[in-house]
């Protein structure tokens, strides 16, 4: 009985659904496609938002965990570091031991060897205090966390690394050797843990016991270098501000005097704020920003809004047409009520169909496309988080439910008598509601078009702006080990044999990669006011300026002809010169270099170079001191200038030279252009997502415009016939059709332009070097919008132009 009833209802609904599609394939198709795109875009961007706000909140007591970081100011240069000095923990622990759990993690990239002669670079290798396992409890797959980081040379590895190094074998108790210069350190695997989820700011594959460092690198226990990520888990009732104050006091009383010169200031960062609010020096990995994800969420809402507006506009237009037909037949009454009931069913059916389709499509495209795009969850991970899924589903159901009501409500309000009696009021506010909605759509489209243009243009500007050095044919070999560093001159000589290599130069940093520049103390004995400034430095060999075509403003380049250049010559950049003022050539300069111990180089300024952007365009050019680097410690890269032509061939040749040079390690090659571009990765990623969804939103808006044009043609065909009889040319008709959009486009410009102007100036303020997003861009945006309108109206436009008035003006 019950079954029959349900089946009857189902059949009935299905019949109606099929009927609507048959009657109005265009309207129904547009509605469904638009809604599906809207729902998908919104779901994706909402889930992205949820994903980005979920960082690190899965750790138990996440709200009580903090990262202890340092702000420092030295001679006017302000720096926010994500890391703290290593000895600080012990003093702090002594002071407040019972109130919190403290642990450090020290990143220590290196080469790992498992089988003979198989070495691979592991960048996510850290040394940590055992308490880290209390603060961040980890899921064990094999072995035990009990005493797993207590003794020297204990090692915890992630599941995927276990698979990579040990395959099917049980890794527990096995050893991996870590290449540390002349030493080979043997670590014993104590536990295998789950890989880090993507939504944590932490980024490690290996955790080794910190006691290991005491054994092979006791110098690590320094206030200066290296530095550690320092985490604290507070008791729930602990008083944060008093703990911060104690920390500052502990630092001020116990730190080395030299360290205190930088006026370090302790900052406790809540763990869950890190991913969206922190952008400090030396982060684990690049973080996101709240503005960015808000923007994306807004984008998702916009697309859904555009789709819902389409749906409302098209459905009301269609419903009204049918009401009018019923009305004209003068058989209203019950038939009208029936019709309204049917409108309800139809509205819901369209929404239900779109909804089911969207979910299906999402399930299919999530893993291969979306999770890559937004760099996150796979669908199975999402489904496991069923609460989230339920919320998203619920939100969508409510939204689309409301959207389903609206067209019928509007239609009920529409009185069919008006249609017959040709009431005056009808023309006064005719389509005002529809025009308002369409104006909203196009305003949104305009905003999206302009913002996308802005992102793309700024990214293009940043990556194509001349940084003041040549970079297009430049690669750099990263020195893999001490052998490389000691013998870099031999490598240079061997590479010079290759005919296509124009130049090679050793350096301590990669141009464009801010973090690779070491800051050291500089003194100018002739200028007592400028004692002890920390400036970025660049240790090079004599070929560096030539290799990168860096221009000298005055003085001379380093030269092998002056043997004293190797220790007594310095070149500074124009920004440094401007900072100091006056004639600088020949002045005395002293540079402190840390080579395990402090070494002070004394010499003279022999040249001043034009400013080049050795850091990103986010910043203006800092002062820079360039010196000849003889000490192996900072010779980290060998830069190579190639020739135009096949990069692949040239690199292959370089690789075979390197293979013979260093038989132990794989070659690590950096492309200078790529390194520079990677600085602007966030702009690129945002730009890509914006572009994709903007195109989608414009497509949805264009679909709506197309549907309305169809409706409008039906409404206006007779009028167009009359106009033709009155002598309207094709041009007149075109204008007449597009005139409807004049107000809509004007509103779009008036509402979107000031907003975009405000937002763009604000955003571009983040950059020391910003593209000029001038009026022309706004006009291009307008042009794109007009083009979209014309294209979506093209079919109806041609129909209007070609229509034969005789057919539309038959007197019945």
């Amino acid at each position, binding site marked *: 009985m019950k079954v029959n009833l349900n089946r009857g209802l189902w059949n009935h609904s299905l019949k109606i659904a099929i009927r609507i599609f048959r009657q109005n394939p265009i309207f129904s198709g547009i509605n469904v496609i638009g809604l599906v795109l809207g729902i998908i875009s919104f779901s994706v961007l909402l889930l992205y938002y949820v994903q980005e706000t979920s960082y690190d909140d899965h750790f138990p007591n996440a709200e009580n965990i903090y990262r202890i970081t340092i702000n420092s100011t030295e001679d006017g240069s302000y720096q926010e570091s994500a890391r703290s000095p290593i000895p600080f923990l012990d003093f702090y622990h002594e002071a407040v031991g019972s109130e919190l759990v403290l642990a450090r993690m020290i990143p220590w990239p290196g080469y790992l060897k498992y089988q003979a002669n198989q070495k691979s670079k592991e960048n996510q290798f850290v040394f940590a205090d055992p308490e880290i396992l209390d603060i961040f409890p980890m899921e064990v797959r094999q072995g035990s966390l009990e005493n797993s980081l207590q003794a020297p040379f204990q090692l915890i590895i992630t599941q995927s690394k276990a698979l990579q190094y040990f395959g099917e074998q049980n890794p527990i108790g096995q050893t991996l050797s870590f290449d540390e210069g002349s030493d080979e350190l043997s670590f014993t695997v104590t536990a295998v843990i789950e890989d880090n989820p993507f939504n944590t700011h932490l980024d490690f594959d290996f955790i080794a016991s910190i006691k290991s460092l005491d054994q092979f690198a006791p110098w690590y226990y320094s206030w200066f270098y290296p530095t550690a990520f320092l985490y604290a888990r507070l008791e729930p009732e602990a008083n944060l501000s008093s703990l911060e104050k104690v920390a500052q006091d502990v630092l001020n009383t116990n730190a080395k005097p030299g360290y205190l010169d930088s006026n370090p200031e302790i900052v406790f960062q809540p763990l869950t704020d890190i991913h969206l609010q922190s952008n400090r020096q030396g982060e684990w990995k690049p973080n996101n920003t709240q503005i960015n994800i808000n923007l994306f969420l807004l984008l998702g809402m916009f697309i859904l809004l555009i789709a819902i507006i389409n749906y409302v506009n098209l459905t009301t237009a269609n419903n009204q047409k049918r009401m009018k037909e019923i009305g004209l037949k003068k058989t209203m009454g019950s038939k009208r009520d029936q019709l309204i009931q049917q409108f309800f069913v139809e509205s819901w059916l369209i929404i239900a169909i779109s909804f089911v389709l969207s979910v299906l499509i999402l399930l299919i495209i999530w893993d291969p496309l979306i999770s890559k795009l937004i760099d996150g969850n796979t669908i199975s991970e999402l489904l496991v988080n069923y609460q989230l899924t339920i919320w998203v589903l619920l939100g969508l159901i409510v939204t689309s439910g409301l959207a389903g009501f609206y067209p019928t409500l509007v239609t009920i309000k529409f009185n069919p008598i008006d249609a017959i009696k*040709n*009431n*005056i009021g009808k*023309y006064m506010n*005719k389509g005002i509601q529809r025009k308002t909605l369409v104006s909203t759509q196009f305003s949104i489209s305009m905003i999206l078009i302009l913002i996308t243009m802005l992102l793309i243009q700024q990214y293009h500007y940043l990556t194509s702006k001349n940084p003041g050095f040549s970079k297009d044919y430049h690669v750099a070999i990263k020195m893999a080990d001490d052998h490389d560093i000691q013998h870099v001159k031999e490598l240079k000589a061997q590479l010079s044999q290759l005919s296509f290599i124009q130049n090679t130069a050793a350096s301590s940093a990669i141009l464009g990669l801010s973090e690779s520049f070491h800051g050291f103390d500089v003194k100018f004995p002739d200028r007592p006011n400028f004692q002890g400034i920390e400036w970025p430095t660049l240790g090079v060999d004599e070929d560096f300026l030539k290799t990168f075509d860096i221009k000298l403003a005055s003085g001379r380049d380093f030269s092998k002809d002056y043997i004293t250049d190797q220790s007594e010559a310095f070149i500074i950049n124009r920004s440094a010169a401007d900072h100091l003022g006056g004639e600088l050539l020949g002045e005395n300069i002293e540079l402190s270099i840390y080579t395990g111990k402090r070494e002070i180089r004394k010499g003279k300024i022999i040249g001043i170079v034009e400013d080049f952007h050795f850091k990103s365009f986010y910043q203006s050019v800092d002062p820079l001191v360039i010196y000849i680097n003889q000490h192996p410690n900072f010779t980290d890269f060998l830069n190579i200038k190639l020739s135009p032509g096949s990069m692949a061939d040239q690199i292959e040749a370089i690789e075979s030279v390197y293979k013979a040079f260093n038989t132990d390690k794989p070659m690590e090659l950096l492309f200078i252009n790529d390194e520079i571009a990677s600085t602007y990765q966030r702009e690129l990623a945002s730009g890509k997502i914006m572009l994709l969804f903007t195109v989608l939103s414009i497509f949805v808006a264009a679909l709506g415009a197309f549907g309305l044009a169809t409706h409008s043609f039906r409404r206006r065909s*007779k*009028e167009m*016939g*009359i*106009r*033709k*009889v*009155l*002598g*309207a*040319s094709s041009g*007149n008709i075109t204008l007449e059709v597009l005139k409807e959009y004049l107000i809509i486009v004007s509103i779009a410009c008036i509402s979107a332009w000031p907003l975009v102007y405000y937002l763009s100036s604000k955003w571009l303020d983040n950059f020391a070097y910003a593209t000029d997003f001038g009026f022309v861009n706004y006009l291009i945006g307008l042009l794109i919008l007009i083009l979209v309108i014309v294209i979506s109206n093209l079919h109806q436009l041609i129909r209007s132009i070609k229509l*034969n*008035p*005789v057919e539309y*003006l*038959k*007197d*019945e």
Partner: protein
Amino acid sequence: MIQLNNIDKYYSSKFTRTFVLKGIKLEIKSGEFVTIMGPSGAGKSTLLNIIGLLDQPSAGEYLFMEEPVHHFKERKRSELHKHHIGFVFQAYHLIDELTVYENIETPLLYKGIKGKQRKAMVAEILDRFNIVAKKDLFPEQLSGGQQQLVGVARAIVGQPKLLLADEPTGNLHSKQGQVIMELFKELNAEGMTIIQVTHSDENAQYGSRIVQLVDGMIRSDQAVLPAHPKHEG
């Protein structure tokens, strides 16, 4: 002014050709006031549309003002139409969204007549037809007779040489119809060539010549006897 030689108009479907007009020969001189009569479906409207250059004959020659328009391209035909022909419809076909003033102004806009002159021309017509007070109303606010008056005003505001009217009084009371007919007579007296389609013998008497169309062929073509007593209105 108008010369039709062996005009055919037919519609082809799969296997058959349905003739709407067949072998029409008709000459209309400048200044004539011709009435086309005939049963419904005889092809009157079709003939009028062909004469008005809105439709094309399937065969035959059409000379309009000595020009062989059957050879002309669409664009040139519509130029001729725009400058020399005014149309009045049974259902008025005013543009609902436009006021009386704007409706009358529209053909002048399409003819490219500039602002001041255009205003003057519209004003003159409004005045002549006694509808100045109605100029800001929308069509739906007018009676049928008033709407048709606007229809005529719009048709002649551009001073066409030829006025075509397809059952202009078909939807009107006889009283309203008379007003329109008197107007036509006046316009004809001023030199405008008029061709009207009507079912009313009474209306036909206003013209100078009656063409009877039956089954797409001209059955008779007679002058209206001047002696025939006119209905006084």
